[in-house]
């Protein structure tokens, strides 16, 4: 079927808006392929099934100035590689790369001509993740991102922190990271801060057999920011994948994850906690494909919304024929602190194997008055009592984080946000 003209034109406009970076030959080839993909699928529009609840218009036009809210840096680990990006541009002077035999790091803008492992992955996982649901912002990213990191992990590596600093009021940034966790290797990737006034990030991660990948990110708290993120992950046999995202504020955040379990006994856990007050739209769009036996996946997403804030969840579990003994779980919950906020959920299961366990649930409600009365009757002021209950609601998502110290840091961030957004 021919693409509607406005989608084709939209794609051309997007490609024209961002000049193609020039780099290694393999990279330029992958970028050209991605540009062609985008031209074929067209730009996103509000009538598209997957953009119905999150109008993409703000992602396509000019970027307005976005005020920055200074926030204390998270994940301050002494023994970690720290890569600093200022408005989405790598800053070597502020970055620290430690001696680590288990890990190789290059930045995308200085990628070698013969870095074969990265050449094999760049755009490949994104491209594979375009079917059956097109993800035009990811194709755009592959075609136009000039910044990012290429990380190859061969053993138990020190954590990698991607630290984002904003200086410009209206920068429009694109980052593309490629990560390969080799067999039996381990990596923790931490991301902190608002990338730019508007940002589009893609992470492609290949988690080989028996490898472990942990990802925790804090998307900062600038109210006006516009953000699209994609994680494309391919999991080998017996591998472990975990990703958690904390979102405070944000005019538009669309976090997509496309995870494919390709080897037996792999596990993928993805979770998120989002809190919004007022002009806030937060969308988690998840697609998990089980394509091997005895794999397990979990999706746990919680959103707290007030003053007309909007939450969207579109989560799918696809169990392919032959993916027997799959154990899939998905929960999405919205807690509305007033009558003006909205939570829209679209849980989907598509199962072609006959011996699987898949469960999904979605709820939307307000703070329980009986619990509130119990707490206040013991002397806890109502606002504080409500915060306790809201944090309790969010905790099922936070509990997905393996590291208790990091989990407590995020609980503190959420507690601080709730205190600032009372009344």
């Amino acid at each position, binding site marked *: 079927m021919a693409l509607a003209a406005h989608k084709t034109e939209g794609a051309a406009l997007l490609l024209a808006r961002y000049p193609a970076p020039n780099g290694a030959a393999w990279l330029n080839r992958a970028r050209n392929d991605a540009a062609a993909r985008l031209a074929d699928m067209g730009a996103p529009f509000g009538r598209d099934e997957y953009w119905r609840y999150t109008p993409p218009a703000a992602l396509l036009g000019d970027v307005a100035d976005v005020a920055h809210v200074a926030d204390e840096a998270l994940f301050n680990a002494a023994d970690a590689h720290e890569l600093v990006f200022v408005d989405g541009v790598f800053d070597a002077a502020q970055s620290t790369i430690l001696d680590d035999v288990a890990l190789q790091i290059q930045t995308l803008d200085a990628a070698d001509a013969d870095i074969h492992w990265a050449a094999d992955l760049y755009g490949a996982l994104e491209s594979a993740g375009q079917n059956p649901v097109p993800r035009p912002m990811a194709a755009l990213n592959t075609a136009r991102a000039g910044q990012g990191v290429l990380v190859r992990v061969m053993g138990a590596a020190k954590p990698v922190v991607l630290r984002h600093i904003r200086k410009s009021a209206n920068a429009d940034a694109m980052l593309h990271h490629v990560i390969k966790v080799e067999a039996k290797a381990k990596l923790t990737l931490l991301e902190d801060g608002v990338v730019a006034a508007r940002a589009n990030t893609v992470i492609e991660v290949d988690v080989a057999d028996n490898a472990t990948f942990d990802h925790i990110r804090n998307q900062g708290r600038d109210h006006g920011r516009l953000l699209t993120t994609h994680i494309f992950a391919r999991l080998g046999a017996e591998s472990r994948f975990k990703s958690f995202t904390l979102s405070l504020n944000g005019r538009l955040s669309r976090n997509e994850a496309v995870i494919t379990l390709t080897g037996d006994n792999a596990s993928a856990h993805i979770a998120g906690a989002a809190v919004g007050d007022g002009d806030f739209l937060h969308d988690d769009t998840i697609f998990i494909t089980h394509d091997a036996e005895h794999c397990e996946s979990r999706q746990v997403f919680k959103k707290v919304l007030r003053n007309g804030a909007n939450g969207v969840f579109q989560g799918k579990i696809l169990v392919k024929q032959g993916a027997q003994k799959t154990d899939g779980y998905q929960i999405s919950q919205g807690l509305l602190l007033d009558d003006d906020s909205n939570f829209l959920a679209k849980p989907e299961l598509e199962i072609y194997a006959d011996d699987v366990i898949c469960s999904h649930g979605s709820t939307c409600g307000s703070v329980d008055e009986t619990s509130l009365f119990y707490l206040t009757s013991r002397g806890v*002021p109502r606002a504080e009592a409500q915060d306790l209950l809201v944090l309790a609601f969010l905790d099922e998502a936070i509990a997905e984080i393996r590291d208790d110290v990091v989990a407590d840091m995020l609980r503190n961030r959420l507690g601080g946000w709730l205190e600032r957004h009372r009344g």
Partner: protein
Amino acid sequence: MLNINNLHVKLEEEDKIILKGVNLTVGAGEVHAIMGPNGSGKSTLSYVLSGRDGYEVTDGSASLDGVDLLEMEPEDRAAAGLFLAFQYPVEIPGVGNMTFLRTAANAQRKSRGEPELSAAEFLKLVRSKAASLQIDAEMLKRPVNVGFSGGEKKRNEILQMAVLEPKMCILDETDSGLDVDAMKLVAEGVNALRSEGRSFLVITHYQRLLDHIKPDVVHIMADGRIIKTGGPELALEVENNGYADILAEVA
């Protein structure tokens, strides 16, 4: 201590009148029991005093040491020294029992202008109170009342009472759902808290509990009013003859 005068209460959402002129005075250090048939308004009285939503006071007053209770928020009533031991303690997943207790105790101290307790001080305080109620560290760590047995929930209520040290304690059918041993344990917990400056209002269906928590005064409540007041012997009379005789006598 507690003064309730001509208290009239209706449900907020419907035109149902529950309390039709309750008069009750509990002096400092006294233990009063309220007995009465189902639907007489006993639990409503406890909820109205502690500030639960859904009720409308249409007439009368209730004060604690001369301070009007009815105008206050629930948390302020608690800080003023009122405590309700719930008939059905609420389960709160995700909120640790210890966190809850400490938040409550410190919020009350703060509102009274007293210094807050550190985590270490507080732990010491709770441990000393918990032991006699047979509440172990494991129960303190668990989310509030989640997965607790009926007896554990009631003991947890008494623990909160012991830690918060209120002056006016209302026990709403604390004996319901308890076996004899559990009831004894709870009663011992309450008795340990009896003092000159602390009063109790014990709401119950059965005389049993009053064998363990000996009341000074017993009230019989029916159809939204206190219809008879007497000594402990009144409870025995109810136990032996039921409410029918008393109701007939008053009518």
